[in-house]
């Protein structure tokens, strides 16, 4: 028993099965990310005046990541086009670059995450707030490299209150009221930032595994059934474009706005 249209297109719909499937899957992905984007909007609109963080993320790094993903989108199309004109070596090259881009993206993202998890806001018992990256933490004291601020608002709008210079601050444990890093629990901005980019990163990693498989062991199918293999590259490419597109929305709303 063979299922029809696994490789050929059905004349009246113009699709082969997997293509219909991936578009439907992407429609549901749109709803998944759409719900999270709506959550972002609602949380941001509901935040008290002046308490929505601005400029907390590293724009140059975000820009590099955006360019990396756009490049990977181009190479994934080039890889597919190479198969269409029967140039398997060119496919290997371009899809290799796609895979590399995916890894660079995840690498940069991990560095950004690490930066947030080592970034601490320390509320002192005398009401002052120290903010900076953790250098050392012992039973008796905590050392951070950062600055003191008078008002919490100063930490929120970093466009207005740019941090100038870092000093090494050592605080005794008994002077600390509250110590919290810029992890998901820090505030709703960090929560939605980690949730959105984390879910997106999972998509990147999932896509990279598929692309890696099709680049490596999966590419043996090319010799047996080139048309089917080309279709697989097209399907994984469609998914990859979607992952890029999500980032194209994530970058401005989290980094720029």
């Amino acid at each position, binding site marked *: 028993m*063979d299922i*029809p249209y696994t490789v050929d297109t*059905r004349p009246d719909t113009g699709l082969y099965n997997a293509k219909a499937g991936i578009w439907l899957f992407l429609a549901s992905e749109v*709803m998944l990310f759409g*719900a999270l984007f709506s959550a972002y909007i609602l949380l941001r609109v509901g935040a008290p005046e002046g308490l929505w963080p601005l400029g907390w993320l590293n724009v140059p790094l975000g820009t590099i990541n955006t360019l990396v993903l756009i490049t990977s989108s181009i190479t994934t199309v080039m890889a597919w086009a190479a198969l269409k004109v029967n140039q398997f070596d060119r496919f290997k090259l371009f899809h290799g670059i796609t895979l590399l881009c995916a890894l660079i993206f995840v690498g940069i993202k991990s560095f950004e995450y690490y930066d947030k998890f080592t970034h601490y806001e320390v509320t002192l018992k005398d009401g002052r707030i120290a903010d900076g990256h953790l250098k050392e933490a012992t039973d008796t004291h905590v050392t951070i490299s950062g600055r003191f601020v008078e008002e919490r608002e100063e930490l929120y709008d970093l466009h207005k209150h740019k941090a100038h210079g870092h000093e090494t601050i050592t605080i005794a444990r008994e002077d600390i009221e509250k110590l919290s890093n810029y*992890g998901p*629990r820090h505030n709703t901005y960090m*929560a939605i930032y980690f949730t959105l980019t984390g879910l997106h990163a999972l998509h990147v990693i999932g896509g990279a595994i598929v692309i890696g498989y099709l680049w490596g062991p999966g590419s043996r199918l090319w010799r047996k059934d080139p048309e089917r293999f080309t279709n697989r590259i097209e399907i994984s490419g469609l998914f990859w474009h979607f992952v890029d597109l999500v980032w194209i929305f994530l970058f401005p709303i989290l980094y720029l706005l």
Partner: protein
Amino acid sequence: MQATTHAIPHTGVHEAHHSDAGFWRTYIFSTDHKVIGIQYGLTSLTFLLIGFCLMLVMRWQIAHPGEPVPVIGGLLEAVLGDVAAKGVMSNELYNSFGAMHGTIMIFLGVVPLAFAAFGNYVVPLMIGAPDMAFPRINMASYHVFVLGGLVMLVSFFIPGGAAQAGWTSYSPLATSIATDGQTFWLIGMVLLITSSLLGAVNFIATIIQLRAPGMTWMRLPFFVWAQFVTAFLLLLAFPPLEAAGIMQLMDKVAGTSFFLPTGLAIGGDLANVSGGGSPLLWQHLFWFLGHPEVYVLILPAMGIVAEVISNNTRKPIWGYKSLVYSALAIGFLSFIVWAHHMYLTGMGTKVATFFQTTTMIISIPSVIILTCMFISLWGGSIRFNTPMLFVLAFLPMFGIGGLTGLPLGFSYSDIHLHDTYYVIAHFHYIVAPGTIFALFAGIYYWFPKMTGRKMNEFWGRVHFWLSFIFMNLVFQPMFAQGMSGMLRRMADGGAMYSATANARAGAGVIGGLTDYIMSLHTYILWAAVGLALAQIPFIVNLFWSLRNGPKVKSDNPWRSTTLEWQTPTPPPHGNFAEPPRVYRGPYEYSVPGHPTDYTPQNVPEK
């Protein structure tokens, strides 16, 4: 086309090979849509029974608060521990049974049975396809479903017990109850949503891509249309709940505050959270799924009803096109009615007005569908067999359920009825004597195709009449209770607010739930027990008929027109003996001038 014609001649051979594939490949890791359909069917029927048993225990607690549960009280204590000390249901246990009853019935019972089981078994046959478009994804969908179900079941036995915040899991309540049951619930839901996503993609792709030659859109049986729209609802409405589930999981596990407002106090102390979240956001995302979900529950049932009615009245279904367009309209409108569940959240009267308008509009296509079904009966020579009895009961029962929904759809009358037993009675009339009756009809109707034997007709009728009577005895009194102001989700069944309790409290407290309203609990309890007993003939019949039911004399015992009956019985791997070609619409019954009173879709024009 080439693929089909090239493939089918081999099916007979394939079938022989397939049965040799061994137990695991044939029954557990099967990629055959029919086996997966039956797997889904048996699993979801089991879950329906579990969900029903939870409710039986709860009904005891409601009627006799604080008294040990008879018969199984000791077992509850032995298995669940302190929450059922001395066999008495604690409030926590009541809450978790309530939450899990809803969750199990909807996500593990009715939806998998209506959509995944019947859809899997029947849809590819009806459209003349050899299998689903993605058989392995189909298998994965079932396995993820089972995993989700197991996570839900396991949560009963962890310290603190299962989720307690209702099937709706409203935050901040859901996040602040000190049990990991909610975490299990969320992980279970994410798995179930993944499963239904895989299923929905597969169904839609199958219906779009694998229709047999000649099976144009307007020749699809209504059941296929209903499943098609249902699949779209699952595809597009579930992901927002998945997003919400992920966020609540973050709240629960990573300490975020998506749904926790600033200044939240739990047990009198300020919660150690950053705040800034929005409890309303959860409700919006939940009901964005929650309402389309209602139509996920009802559309496949309507599809079954259409098939059984036309077959047993020996007439084309009346208004086929109206049915199709109504189903599509319902599908579209169901995405813009969700906030009628939230009139009392203070989201504003203008928003409420919008949603009450769309809610009234969506009742129109539902009424069109029901009316078409009723008119289809007119002038037919009706065969009153078991499936038809269930379907005939479906029509008024769904009517009651639908019409009692209107007062809930209006924001002003909802103020009185919101969160009372009236709501429970309303949606149970839709789902229990509505959808579940249609599902029973489907089981009795397609059983001969699945097994080659009919189910016992006498015990089928016993099952029907007893279920029909007890079903109404269970749910009808709840309308009265709800209108008297009895709230749902009360572990003591409202005893605290009864007139008796108020009189005891002394001067100044007047009114309360009257003794009569309170006494209805006892009737409902025994009606529910009766309903449980009424299912025994069904369960026995289902398994007994596998071996001992009367053998069908042809592949098409009901003399039906649709393609699923034009296959060998039971259909082999690959389904059709030769690739079907479709020449006519789905309901050519009693066409004047034709030799028989039914003309199957694959019979060529003369």
